[in-house]
């Protein structure tokens, strides 16, 4: 173990404190006995129990999950297709315009995206509900997927696709049988990113959600305006838990894959 200097130690502590102190307090207070969020009155898990009874929160959580899964799946399909065209399509008419338009939502203020979607849905007479949130989330998360996937495709050896064509694949078969399996990790990362963004989103969802469907962030935000309840702390703790498990699991798997690939490469050199 190497020793840290005082300077290193201070910056490390400060950095982590800034990042995680608020969350730590939230987690601690989720186990608070008292109804008052700021007063500690002993350990209890009763707010978790109450949360399970709260229909409104459970409904919102269910909607959020549905929206997240459906929108990130559609966004992954569309984003991957867009990335493939951008990287592999060569030069075609309107390419620059098209690529600019794919990436524009990345820098577009969310309020504007939300507002324009709202106007569109009203314009075409679409009732606001799960469907409209899904459409909205697909729209803005698609560009993130396409950024992730195209960065993988740029480093992808084009001769692999040519080899597939050479061996009798149609262009679609070459994509399905060769390109897609190889870029799969990037596609999955794109899906996870889109899912996280959808789970996270408050602004766009509040523009496009209707009375029939509310997502969890909207629900939390609106109930906080009436005062922070320990129930919300409990809910947030659960969400932090899910995200943490997901991130750790993902990095463990990818680390193991890298280690295995390295071991294979060493074994191959010996034979």
């Amino acid at each position: 173990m190497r020793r840290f200097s005082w300077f290193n130690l201070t910056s490390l502590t400060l950095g982590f404190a800034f990042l995680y102190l608020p969350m730590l307090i939230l987690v601690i207070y989720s186990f608070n006995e008292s109804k008052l969020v700021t007063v500690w009155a002993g350990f209890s898990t009763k707010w978790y129990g109450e949360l399970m009874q709260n229909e409104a929160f459970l409904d919102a959580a269910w909607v959020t999950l549905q929206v997240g899964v459906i929108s990130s799946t559609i966004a992954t399909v569309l984003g991957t297709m867009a990335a493939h065209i951008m990287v592999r399509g060569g030069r075609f008419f309107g390419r620059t315009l098209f690529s600019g338009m794919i990436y524009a939502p990345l820098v577009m203020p969310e309020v504007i995206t939300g507002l324009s979607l709202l106007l569109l849905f009203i314009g075409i007479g679409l009732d606001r509900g799960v469907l409209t949130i899904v459409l909205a989330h697909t729209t803005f998360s698609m560009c993130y997927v396409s950024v992730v996937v195209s960065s993988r495709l740029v480093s992808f050896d084009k001769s692999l696709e040519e080899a597939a064509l050479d061996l009798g694949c149609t262009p679609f078969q070459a994509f399905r049988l060769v390109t897609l399996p190889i870029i799969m990790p990037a596609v999955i990362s794109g899906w996870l990113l889109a899912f996280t963004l959808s789970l996270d989103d408050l602004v766009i969802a509040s523009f496009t959600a209707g009375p029939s469907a509310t997502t969890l962030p909207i629900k939390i935000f609106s109930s906080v305006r009436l005062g922070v309840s320990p129930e919300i702390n409990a809910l947030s703790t659960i969400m932090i838990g899910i995200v943490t498990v997901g991130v750790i699991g993902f990095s463990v798997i990818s680390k193991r894959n890298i280690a295995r690939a390295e071991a294979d490469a060493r074994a191959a050199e010996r034979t």
Partner: protein
Amino acid sequence: MPANGAPIFAPWDDPAAKPLIRFENVTKRFGDFTAIDNLTLDIYEREFFALLGPSGCGKTTMMRMLAGFETPTEGKIYVGGQDMGPIAPNQRPVNMMFQSYALFPHLSVYENIAFGLRRDGKPKDEIHHRVEEMLRMVRLQKFAKRKPHQISGGQRQRVALARSLAKEPKLLLLDEPLGALDAKLREDTQFELMDIQENTGTTFVIVTHDQEEAMTVASRIAVMDEGKVMQVSTPDRIYEFPDNAYVADFIGDVNLIEGRSSAAIDETVQIEWAEGQQAITAQTSRAITAGQKVFYAIRPEKVTISPDRPADAVNAAQGKILDIAYLGNLSTYHVQLPTGQVIKSQMANTRRISRRPYTWEDEVWVSWTKTGGSVLEG
């Protein structure tokens, strides 16, 4: 070969032979850059044909046009008499072995070889049979279940070869197939490739920048430069009878002497090449006119070095040994003439080096025969 009655394989000399591949006035431009310039070329069935040239000479473009990854800007390419213009890469009777091997990293060795066969929808046991046969051919049966990153570079090269031959293509394209192998493995693999080519009877077209490789494996070589074919011929003719100074210089080591020729009389010319030097007497079948500027190309191993002027020498010049390049089996002597010109002479080291007859600064004579070199039009 004719001694035992077998005919020499030389369909290019037979006017009745139909070529398997025909490039007809093919031009390929990338924007302003002309990669292939109005090129016409025939390649015959069962040939091991090498496209040889420096990088950027257009040889890879030729191959990619055959595979269907590039389309000619002008002209037509025929394979087996059929115009390849409208035919997509996946429908051509052509397979390619890529320089990077392009093995599918997510599939095992077995699945890589079976990939093309599966696309044809062949019955399962037929595919299995064929893959086993291919694995046997490249001696990789034990590695069938491994992934490409679990085998060595030489084994990957063989998987790539097996995969591209599995569909029994009429024509196999090999893009620098041995480029990634080290020298010793390379040499073994060259002979292996020749054996496989002979046994399968497939027409091979190989792209390479390595002249030794081309000379070893090919039945004929096309030497290319800047999108043009400089000469197409058998390795021995390319080496011994180059068509032009570019080919003479590109293939092997050569002494290129510029001079002015007399008119050819009885296929013999006199070339005036330096003040105070005897004119070179050379044999040529070219119609050379008096006073024409020519290059005289002679290989170093055809130049003899001796302490005195050989009595019967047709061409001889005196000089001083400037440099000796010792290669083990051979030594190349750089002999500087009084005119400043350097003539290279290569001698086999039939004796051990301690008994070497010549050393630096020795006054020697270089000589060569009337038929030793080629007269090339400048």
